[in-house]
């Protein structure tokens, strides 16, 4: 017995054809489950037609347990959507070898309305979708959608079997979190439009899933500090407390690089010298090896292109060294684009690297003795800091300048020790301090100018003096005034003294304390406004050490506590300049 019911007649034919080799007719294929499935798809409830029970038995449907099903089936029959035929009388119509359409004459429902005259048989097709990744391996758990057929998950073999479907045309897509964007090659689509699923066919669709272009992080730090210049993650820091860098958090969605370079999106700044390379770390936020194809699919754009260029031709690992080279003085942004989407960026400050001369000497007066210092160590320390702003400090050891016989200077100097047995500058005023330092500098310059033998001073050089009072000093060092070429260090060589020296040289390059900042030229507002605020702890990164909490201080920015121009008490970590300072510093 066979039954033809509306839209599934084509399937019936197909099955008959397939079964024909067994020289028998597949009967009773429309079993209880299939009937249920069919009715769910094609029939509406509420209409009942008399006589439907007559065929229900053949369908394995029992009135006592499937009343609703019977009612829906009856409704479909009443609507003329399905035909029920007594196929016990029709097997001879199947042609052996297939190809012929089964076209039994429907008897029409009994009882019920008359069937439509000569209805066309309902066709049947199959749709099977297989999803693989770029390596040809099955992708399990992808959601495959085929238009009105709905969605199915792929199994461990990457297969989503839609089974018997209505012939037609379907848009087939595959999606899986972390995957799925279209690529450029037609063979690499994860979406196919208007896939024909013809009547009587079994259509196989192959889709390819790609690892999605996840966000990319730049230069959380190079592997070694010596391989890059300046790094700034403070200028564009997020407004929200504990704002999280948008990279390398994966699956955050599409980003768009802001038009302005100072949007507080946690975009980073990097400095690079004209004609020099800098190494950054690039980090694609993928899981496992799936990132590799997307790495190759990403493009790197420097805007404007005349400022710098990308040196690294190809990224082959999700965490790798990424090199750029400065081309001309200016500012630019580098963004990574994947499938037309921005997935990460940073900003570039490019300048001509400048070598600034600093002559170093120790001053001997009636109140100081010669200080020993290691010029090479001092040079290494300072250049590790000033390279951030593309400045190379060229230090020359001028040895000792003996001013102990300068009586005029001694008089001025005495005013700096007003407290009996007290330290240098104890209970003094800024005015007398500056007057003495100016006098000492003038005397030292005059002494050096008189030299006819080595070491001789260099024209236009800045001056760094070790003035180490026998009685000790109230402070670590001083620059005569902002931008003045003369700087003093008040205690013996060592980490603290060098750090102070670097700080004071900053003043010589016209940089201010954050507390004395003018406008926003050296510190963005969100940094200087965090002065006098309790400092939170910061975790270490691979560009900067961690820092601990600290009480509020008038000259420490909670948002950038280790800035060299502030008063961070841990000298070993007070060594950072940011973009505005790079740009503001004197360069001659």
């Amino acid at each position, binding site marked *: 017995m066979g039954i033809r019911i509306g839209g599934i007649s084509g399937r019936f034919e197909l099955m008959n054809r397939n079964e024909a080799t067994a020289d028998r007719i597949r009967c009773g294929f429309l079993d209880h489950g299939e009937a249920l499935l069919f009715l769910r798809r094609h029939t509406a409830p509420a209409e009942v037609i008399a006589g439907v029970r007559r065929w229900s038995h053949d369908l394995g449907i029992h009135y006592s347990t499937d009343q609703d099903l019977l009612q829906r089936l009856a409704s479909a029959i009443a609507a003329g959507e399905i035909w029920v035929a007594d196929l016990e009388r029709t097997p001879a119509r199947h042609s052996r070898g297939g190809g012929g359409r089964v076209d039994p004459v429907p008897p029409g429902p009994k009882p019920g309305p008359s069937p439509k005259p000569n209805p066309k048989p309902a066709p049947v097709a199959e749709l099977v979708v297989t999803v693989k990744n770029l390596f040809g391996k099955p992708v399990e758990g992808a959601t495959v959608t085929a238009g009105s057929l709905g969605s199915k998950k792929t199994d461990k073999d990457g297969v989503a079997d839609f089974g018997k479907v209505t012939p037609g045309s379907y848009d087939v897509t595959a999606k899986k979190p972390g995957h799925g964007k279209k690529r450029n090659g037609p063979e690499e689509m994860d979406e196919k439009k208007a896939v024909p699923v013809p009547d009587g066919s079994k259509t196989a669709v192959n889709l390819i899933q790609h690892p999605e272009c996840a966000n990319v992080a730049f230069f959380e730090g190079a592997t070694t500090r010596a391989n890059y210049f300046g790094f700034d993650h403070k200028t564009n820091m997020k407004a929200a407390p504990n704002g999280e860098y948008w990279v390398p958090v994966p699956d955050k969605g599409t980003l768009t690089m802001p038009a302005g370079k100072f949007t507080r999106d946690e975009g980073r700044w990097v400095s690079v010298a004209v004609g020099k390379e800098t190494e950054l770390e690039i980090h694609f936020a993928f899981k496992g090896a799936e990132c590799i194809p997307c790495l190759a699919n990403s493009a790197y754009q420097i805007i404007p292109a005349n400022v710098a260029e990308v040196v690294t031709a190809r990224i082959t690992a999700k965490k790798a060294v990424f090199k750029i080279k400065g081309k001309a003085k200016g500012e630019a942004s580098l963004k990574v684009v994947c499938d037309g989407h921005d997935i990460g960026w940073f900003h570039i400050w490019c300048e*001509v690297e400048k070598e600034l001369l600093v002559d170093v000497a120790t001053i001997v007066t009636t109140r100081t003795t010669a200080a020993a210092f290691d010029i090479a160590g001092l040079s290494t320390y300072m250049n590790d800091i000033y390279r951030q702003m593309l400045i190379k400090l060229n230090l020359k050891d001028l040895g000792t300048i003996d001013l102990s016989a300068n009586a005029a200077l001694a008089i001025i100097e005495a005013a700096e020790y007003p407290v009996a047995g007290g330290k240098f500058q104890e209970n003094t005023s800024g005015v007398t301090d500056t007057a003495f330092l100016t006098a000492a500098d*003038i005397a030292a310059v005059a002494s050096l100018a008189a030299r006819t*033998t080595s070491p*001789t001073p260099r024209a*236009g050089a800045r001056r760094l003096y070790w003035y180490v009072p026998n009685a000790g000093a109230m402070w670590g060092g001083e620059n005569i*005034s902002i931008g*003045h070429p003369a700087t003093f260090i008040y205690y013996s060589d060592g980490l603290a003294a060098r750090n102070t020296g670097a700080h004071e040289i900053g003043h010589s390059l016209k940089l*201010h304390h954050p507390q*004395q900042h003018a406008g926003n030229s050296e510190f963005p507002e969100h940094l200087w406004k965090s002065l006098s605020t309790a400092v939170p702890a910061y975790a270490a990164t691979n560009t900067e050490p961690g820092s601990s909490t600290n009480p509020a201080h008038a000259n420490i920015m909670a948002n950038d506590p280790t800035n060299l121009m502030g008063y961070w008490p841990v000298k070993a970590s007070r060594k950072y300049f940011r973009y505005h300072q790079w740009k503001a510093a004197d*360069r001659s």
Partner: protein
Amino acid sequence: MNYVDICPPAVVYRIQEADLQSAESSNLITWVEENSDRECAMAALESVATRLTATSDLSVIDLFYNAVASYARVLNAGQKQIIRAAYQRIPYEPAISFNYFLGLRNARIDLREDLRGKVGIDWSFASPRRDAETWDYYLYLAAMDEPGALLALAAKVADTKSGNDVTLLLISLADLPGNGVDGILKSYANDLRTAEGVNGPGMPIAENVRILLMMREAD
């Protein structure tokens, strides 16, 4: 004077082997002085002057100009002629204008005609040590007694509002000799604007001017 004749062998070797295309050689003259004496350093300077080309590393060229400025007082006429030729051979580069003009100025090498139209004129800078190509150029012109140059420098100082910037400009200007400079300095003898101390107001301009004038008198 040939450096080969007066410098220690190790220094001679270093001078001969120095790659002027490399920034590693920028400190050559200072290194030579540190490892020999001033005479040897000046001979090395002469040698470098003959070897420099337009493609030499910019920092090498920059510090060559500084060495010229530093040894200017003791350079002889022949050395100055070699240095002048080097200046003419190497295109002017604004990024190193400070030492470029300092060398010309201290050595009193007159390249004014060569430079006409080649130096960008922009008086908008604030500090005499940043983007101050125009200031560097006019200091040189004034040192060479170019008519109007000193007036232009004085006008820049007069147009400057910041007491700190005025102080820095006057300190820079005071490097030039002459009564004209004295006159400009004296015009600020009563200026109570102050320099910026690192922790607050610094010395008044008037006090700095007093010191600068005192130093000039001592010279």
